[in-house]
């Protein structure tokens, strides 16, 4: 079902008058093609039979559906596609015209968003009740904010310094594991572990950044991927220290100035004379990760104005010019790596303390790919773009869990969550094809000579470095 839509969306020539025989032939060809693609892999499902080995269950009905969808999608696109694109373009132009008078007041919007974020847990309780709010704060609020924070942290490395890092999850893992080990072995509290996790992660950022200084572009990406996998494999295999694949449990939860969030007499609820509810901890965790994420953003925005931030952006644009102008590329790259890693470490510490349990499963390459895709889809270097991308990608895939009504359409065995990563992959490809520069590809220059104006994404050539 999936690949047919992918192919159906490609390359339509705008045609004034429709050539029906040609369109039909075109759609028929695509249908034939889809049939070829789906022949063995979709048409037969392998099933392990205890007595006969492998047996095949034919599913020609599914193949017929997919081929029909491919045919009609392509035909529909050829018929209505041109009008649709024109309509969309006209609509976008109208929206941007309508927004033009509001533009100078965009700064107000920022405060509205902040206020909404601050009120989010209360709104969740208000609208969905206590039971529903647990899910909305935990699965949506906290989960998305973790990825926003990771995205902003990686944005320093990828978006500002232009160093493509495919192993960012390693620093997340370092943060999480240092918190877990320090707190379970030495009894350190979360508030001591948090800065330590950042320091350790930054240290690892320097350690891993040092050897890769000479590499650029996709070679750098692959080496960082290799480092990320090495760290994960060492965590899995060093069972004496990390407990291997079964992970570490019993990590103490963060406390509110020493007040634990439990039902005991010394707990948060008892101290303030409140009725105990698990919501208190979620509220606290939500505001904690919100604060950490905003800290990341604030530091990044500030750093961009410092000489080091300017050096990062110069490095991204042109490394050779940068070196010719006397910028120390070693220091510049290492600071980007270590500061980015530090925020990854903070996020890791939060992650470990939030669940109280970590295992190497949470730090697979897929996580790095997801974080990187958030940064790229958001438009590299754009803080607000990264936040929007995290909300869309993580929130969107979480929302799939809610689509239970689809069961009524596709039958009771239909499980929308299975399609989560499938759609994620498709969205990455589609976004790259549609907007390779990400959602927010315009950006304000950090430093200007005469007047301030946004620069189109095509004018900057990040990602070469």
């Amino acid at each position, binding site marked *: 079902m*999936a*690949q047919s839509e*992918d*192919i159906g969306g*490609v*390359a339509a020539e705008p045609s004034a008058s429709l050539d029906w025989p040609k369109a039909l032939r075109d759609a028929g060809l695509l249908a034939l093609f889809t049939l*070829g*693609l789906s*022949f*063995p*892999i*979709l048409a*037969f*499902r*392998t*099933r*392990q039979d205890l007595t006969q*080995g*492998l*047996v*095949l269950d034919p599913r020609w009905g599914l193949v017929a559906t997919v081929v029909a969808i491919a045919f009609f999608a392509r035909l529909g696109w050829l018929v209505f596609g041109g009008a649709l694109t024109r309509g969309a373009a006209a609509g976008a132009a109208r929206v941007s015209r309508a927004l033009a008078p509001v533009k100078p007041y965009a700064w107000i919007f920022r405060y509205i968003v902040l206020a909404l974020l601050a009120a989010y847990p209360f709104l969740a309780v208000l609208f969905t009740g206590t039971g529903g709010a647990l899910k909305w704060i935990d699965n949506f609020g906290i989960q998305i904010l973790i990825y926003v924070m990771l995205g902003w942290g990686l944005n320093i490395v990828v978006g500002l310094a232009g160093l*493509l890092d495919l192993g960012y999850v390693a620093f997340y893992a370092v943060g999480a594991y240092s918190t877990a080990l320090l707190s379970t072995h030495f009894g350190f509290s979360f508030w001591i572990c948090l800065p330590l996790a950042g320091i350790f992660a930054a240290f690892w950022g320097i350690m891993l950044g040092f*050897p890769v200084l000479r*590499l650029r*572009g*996709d*070679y750098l*990406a*692959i*080496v960082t*991927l*290799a*480092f990320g*996998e*090495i760290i994960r*494999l*060492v965590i899995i*295999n060093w069972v004496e220290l990390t407990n291997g694949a079964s992970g570490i449990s019993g990590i103490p939860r963060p406390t509110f100035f020493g007040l634990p969030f439990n039902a005991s007499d010394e707990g948060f609820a008892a101290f303030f004379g409140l009725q105990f509810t698990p919501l208190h901890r979620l509220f606290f965790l939500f505001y904690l990760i919100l604060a950490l994420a905003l800290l990341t953003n604030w530091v990044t925005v500030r750093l961009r104005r410092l000489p080091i931030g300017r050096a990062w952006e110069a490095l991204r644009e042109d490394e*050779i010019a940068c070196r010719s102008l006397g910028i120390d590329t070693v220091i510049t790259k290492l600071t980007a790596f270590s500061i980015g890693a530090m925020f990854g470490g903070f996020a890791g510490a939060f992650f470990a303390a939030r669940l109280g349990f970590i295992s190497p499963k949470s730090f697979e*390459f*897929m996580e790095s*790919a997801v974080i*990187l895709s958030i940064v*790229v889809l958001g438009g590299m270097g754009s803080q607000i773009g990264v936040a929007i991308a995290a909300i869309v990608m993580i929130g969107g895939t979480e929302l799939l869990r809610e689509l239970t009504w689809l069961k009524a359409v596709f039958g009771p065995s239909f499980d929308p969550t*299975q*399609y989560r*990563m*499938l759609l*994620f*992959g*498709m969205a*990455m*490809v589609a976004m*790259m*094809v549609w907007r*390779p*520069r990400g959602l927010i590809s315009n950006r304000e220059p950090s430093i200007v000579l005469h007047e301030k104006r946004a620069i189109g994404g095509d004018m900057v050539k*990040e*990602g*070469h470095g």
Partner: protein
Amino acid sequence: MDYFLQQLVNGLTLGSVYGLIAIGYTMVYGIIGMINFAHGDVFMLSVFIALIVFVLISSLVGGLAIALALIIVLVCAMALTALWSWAIERVAYRPLRGSFRLAPLISAIGMSIFLVNFVQLVQGPRNKSLPPIMDGGFVIPVGSGNITLAYKQILIILTTAVLLAAFWFVVQKTSLGRAQRACEQDRKMASLLGIDVDRTISLTFVMGAALAAVAGVLFMVQYGVVNFSDGFVPGIKAFTAAVLGGIGSLPGAVIGGLLIGLIEVFWSAYFSIDYKDVAAFSILAVTLIFMPSGLLGKPDVEKV
């Protein structure tokens, strides 16, 4: 001595499979300078295709000679995997030609995620295993012990050698190969001279996928078990092989593949089996850092 020789044979077998996959990476990198991240998953897909076609053939026509069945499976798998790879290139990479450099890499990562989850969805998350396809082998006495040369190991090494010779011929002697090498050197100039660059690039993807499908069939013969997640690690190792041999170089990819296979097998045999992937990843990192042009590659000249 016999233990060493046995490991040598095993390493060469494994290395052949890596070498075949590595060619797909090296050809694509040579021609458009992108890491085809989804190539390992195309390999995994080809194992599934081979598996299904094999079961289909043996259930339709029982008692078919194993050699004939494997040839049919090989042809089907090569054709269908090539079709997939062509479609992937068409959908995910061609629209990005001329876009900024990281766009195709990210699109390829998206495609890789898509393929893994697509196969998981349509074929289920469990391991799929076949009964052993080819048993037995020669037992050669060496010194105090014996080494076993399984028939399937001979098949793997022979198939690899024959196909490499065939592809080497295509790249060196045919007009398609000339067009490929021309695009590798200068795409704009090649297109000015009347070479259909898009078609050449598509055919490069098709050739790489066909070789990955050969590796897939051999993988099925050798191990008989496949899982939807089996593409990532062989993919990375094959990429390591391509880099080690010098990316862009066909013989380099094979030599790199054999080296990676040997290192992996000897590492597991003499040191620690748990850390064999760490060894492969470390080789990748060390090669890229200290010897980015690999064994047979041309050094990358930077023009300002």
